[in-house]
């Protein structure tokens, strides 16, 4: 499949060096790997989304304040992550195509237990073969 430059819309064939070097026409760095080229409006929307990355920003200006902020954020993220330990399922199906993955379960014991609307499906081989 070809790559399309998101900035100017130019199409480059598969494996083109321009994907690594940037678009020779406009200098764009972002390419969409697709069978169906996007119209300008859709490209613009996508570029905006890619460029508006959620950045890490801290309010404090002093080094101590920045370090404190980083510690706090780490703590919060670790607490959020440890909530996964309470769940038995490794994958929750919210609807077809929408999945929530419990990384802790998968990494810890490799168990594949799927939960959908309160019903649990247990893939037994994943439990028998698990390593401790």
């Amino acid at each position: 499949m070809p790559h399309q430059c998101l900035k100017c819309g130019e199409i480059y064939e598969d494996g083109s060096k321009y994907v690594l070097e940037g678009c020779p026409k406009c200098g764009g760095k972002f390419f969409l790997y697709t069978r169906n080229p996007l119209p300008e409006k859709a490209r613009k929307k996508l570029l905006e989304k890619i460029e508006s990355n959620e950045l890490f920003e801290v309010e404090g200006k002093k080094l101590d304040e920045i370090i404190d902020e980083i510690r706090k954020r780490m703590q919060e993220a670790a607490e959020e992550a440890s909530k996964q330990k309470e769940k038995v399922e490794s994958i929750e199906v919210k609807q077809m195509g929408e999945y929530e993955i419990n990384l802790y379960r998968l990494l810890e014991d490799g168990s594949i237990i799927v939960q959908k609307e309160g019903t649990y499906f247990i893939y037994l081989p994943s439990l028998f073969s698990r390593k401790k």
Partner: protein
Amino acid sequence: MGLLNRLSAWLLSIFGKKHVRIGIYGPPNAGKTTLANRIAQDWGGGTVGEVSEVPHETRKVQKKGNVVIKNDKASLVIDIVDTPGIATKIDFHEFMEYGMDEEEAKRRAKEATEGVIEAIKWLDNIDGVILLMDSTKNPFTQVNITILGNLEARGLPVIIAANKIDLDGSTPATLKSAFPQHEVIPISALTGANIDLLYEAMVRKFGKKK
């Protein structure tokens, strides 16, 4: 390349075997395939996989086996294992924003979920991990913290590579402060900036294993 020769000799003397398997792990769109391609090109020629801006482009583990590093005395074979992005939520709506129809987006979401499971299973066959993070993004995520915690528990040697330092808004220093117990190497897999530092770190870190 002098560095590669030294790397080869080092790994041989430490691992005592001629086959070292290094997995590249990380969240979607961190640049794992770009890094895998860069390593393959630097060390052996060729590429590992297709790179894309669409998240979860790599949905199966891709292996570039038998990348041979040679010097006068010995040769070393490295497998580079490029893995699907590890995420906690996969939603087909996200793929529809990239112009896919609903059916295709749902299929991709399913494959991406299978990809996460496959990537994690592969950890059992890996000798060392390069955990790739996007240095322009918030590093305090469940994905980063859960993977790191597990790698520590497994005792697998890990290097954090803070990728995309070529982009505006890149803050590799934040990653260094967030994970002080780990070696963090700021790199650009795309431009190759600092990539030699990563290779040196691989020698040091993966060399300690046995």
